[in-house]
């Protein structure tokens, strides 16, 4: 069978061998934990504890601030020492609950859950919502909302995004190998919500061991299939993964549900399993720590709220002084100015590099080589759009399909003139989208 993929895209050096073979290790929280109230898209959560309160591990400390929102749980036992703005990994200050860890990890009694077969769809959705699960691939969209399309009967495919196309990150890879049964459990929960849907595990073909593992685990389930997709960035982009696995294409203003698809990533499905089957809220995630400036790159299970600094220490600290530290992948992650920021629900990795490839060379004039057009998975013209964005011509930007950009960064990656194409386009896109909403 031909490999399933999409047009465009790039093949950056994947760097995955650094952390690929390191089993997931637990990270112990230190004294102070920080829980931003906005770890998701939508309304911020509302704190339901006050400074001075004592909390237990697994206790809800903030409730959903609306339908498109998610609650937050404490991952240690201790005392609330502050509710104040703190720097989050994207560099902005976000209202956060600060908890002092008492080191005892006294845990709440989790409510007993009924077996999956006895749960109604509404009960499942409520368990997912109450566990505070959001899309952990990076977007942070509340999962309960994603799983509540207008017409659930018209959902044909639940796609588990096992592509992990970002270089260096191996968190999903390790999770599939080590927690494959939980992953499949999560898929089964979601399939229970959609009677007409089939489950697809879409794995990049650079992870044959994951394909084998998943095939073995799902061999008796005819509702679930495992497919290999081509190793190419951004294969794990939602729209491109849907196209690669189902041949259905959506433009930027459409939702996957419009073509009968729902995409959830590995970590999200595992959290769904824990919430619905084990009755536990979302409290930790797997984070890859890698890059040439990290002493012993690896994969770590990190409770939310633990600082990046603690996680880097768990990986042996820095081998050399880093020039750049990234929260997330090298293609779409955020450069951080401080590592005194908490791990949140969407922190997939911490990368530290001794050399910053971006600073290496100043941007120069476009030579019209067309590499960006060739690489663009959204099939638009990045070089032209960046020019338009720099002129701030909103009308032309929309006319030239600037809003179709998925901000994957392929254009900036391939540009021989090292122009910041994605940056210009994304900034303009934000302006245009904000105007459209009004």
């Amino acid at each position, binding site marked *: 069978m031909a490999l399933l993929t999409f047009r465009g895209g790039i093949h950056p050096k994947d760097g995955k061998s650094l952390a690929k073979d390191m089993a997931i290790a637990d990270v112990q929280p230190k004294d102070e934990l920080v829980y931003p109230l906005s770890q998701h898209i939508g309304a911020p959560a509302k704190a339901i504890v006050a400074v001075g309160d004592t909390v237990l591990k697994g206790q809800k400390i903030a409730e959903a601030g609306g339908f498109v929102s998610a609650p937050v749980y404490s991952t240690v036992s201790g005392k609330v020492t502050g509710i104040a703005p703190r720097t989050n990994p994207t560099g902005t200050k976000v209202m956060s609950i600060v908890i002092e860890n008492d080191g005892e990890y006294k845990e709440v009694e989790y409510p007993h859950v009924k077996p999956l077969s006895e749960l109604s769809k509404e009960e499942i959705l409520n368990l997912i919502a109450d566990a505070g699960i959001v899309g952990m691939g990076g977007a942070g969209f509340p999962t309960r909302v994603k799983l509540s399309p207008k017409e659930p009967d018209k959902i044909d495919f639940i796609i588990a995004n096992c592509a992990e196309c970002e270089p260096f990150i191996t968190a999903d890879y390790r999770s599939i190998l080590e927690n494959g049964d939980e992953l499949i459990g999560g898929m089964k929960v979601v399939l229970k919500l959609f009677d007409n849907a089939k489950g697809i595990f879409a794995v990049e073909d650079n992870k044959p061991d994951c394909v084998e593992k998943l095939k073995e685990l799902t061999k008796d389930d005819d509702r679930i299939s495992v497919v290999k997709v081509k190793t190419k960035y951004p294969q794990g982009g939602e729209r491109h993964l849907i196209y690669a696995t189902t041949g259905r294409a959506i433009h930027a203003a459409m939702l996957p549900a419009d073509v009968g698809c729902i995409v959830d990533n590995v970590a999200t499905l595992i959290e769904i399993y824990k919430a619905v089957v084990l009755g536990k809220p979302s409290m930790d995630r797997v984070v890859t720590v890698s890059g040439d400036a990290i002493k012993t790159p690896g994969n770590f299970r990190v409770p939310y709220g633990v600082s990046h600094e603690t996680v880097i220490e768990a990986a042996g600290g820095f081998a050399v002084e880093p020039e750049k530290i990234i929260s997330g992948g090298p293609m779409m992650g955020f450069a951080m100015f401080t590592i005194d920021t908490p791990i949140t629900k969407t922190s997939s990795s911490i990368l530290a590099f001794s050399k*910053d490839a971006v600073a290496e060379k100043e941007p120069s004039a*476009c030579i019209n080589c067309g590499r960006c057009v060739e690489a663009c998975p959204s099939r638009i013209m990045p070089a032209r759009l960046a020019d338009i964005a720099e002129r701030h011509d909103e009308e032309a930007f929309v006319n030239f399909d600037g809003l179709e950009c998925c901000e994957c960064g392929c254009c900036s990656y391939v540009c021989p003139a090292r122009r910041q194409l994605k*940056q210009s386009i994304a900034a303009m896109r934000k302006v245009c989208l904000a105007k459209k909403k009004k």
Partner: protein
Amino acid sequence: MSERNLNLSSSPHVRSKVTTGSIMLCVVIALLPASAFGVYNFGVSALIMLLVTTATAVLTEYLYEKLMKKPVTISDYSALVTGLLLGLNMPPTAPYWMGALGSVFAILVVKQLFGGLGQNFLNPALSARCFLLISFTGYMTRFVYDGVTGATPLAVLKAGNLTELNTMNMMLGKIPGTIGETSVIAIVAGAIFLILTEVIDIRIPGTYIVTFVIFIGIFGHFTKAAVGFFDPVYITAHLTGGGLMLGAFFMATDYVTAPITKKGQYVYGICMGILTGLFRLFGGSAEGVSYAILISNMLVPLIERVTRPKPFGKGGEKF
């Protein structure tokens, strides 16, 4: 906590190794076989001409940017490529000052006055060649080979004397012509290097050559030179006897003056193929590649406008 000096920038944080400089350097390397053959074929005067045009082009760019207090960009090797290409387009017997003048025109007038690298809408080397062709027609169309002033194969073809041509020599390049255009083998060797290093794509030169072959295959019949439709000797003579190969692989593929869209590149290749055929078969002079490419350069904005790709999800996702 310790104070760190961390770099901040928008994603992506990794970049391809390919840079403008590395691309231009590849083009220079790809032009070396043709340059070397030109020197072997025409002697030391060809070497001096190549050095003069190249040095003048780089110097012009340097001086202009210095005087205008702009960042100096000679380290991207684009001026070097322009100078070398112009040199390869000069007859080996033209005076050196003419080569120098051409380089100044290419860099100063065609490139820098329009805004520098990436902003010129005409190919600088070709524009300079045409400028010299119009200004000094005698020098630019006189071709001496082995001490004898003779007609280029294309001129022979135009006169309808197909039988006088030795297609083996034309393939090798042992014929009169400009310094770099005569050896198809040397040019194609360079072109293969560029295709393998993904500096150029076969789209533009491929469409150009195929269109041209179809055009002369059909319309050559109506000139007295070809025997019937698709006369293989006639077609070979046209492909190897003039500037087509150098033009198709090294001038038509100039990024700046070619369309950025895939479909547009096919259209652009077809335009050049038809125009070259028209000029060579029905035009006043034997050659037609330079004007065909320059006119197609001017059509690029129009071509791009009508060949804009469809975005993903709106039809553009299909392979």
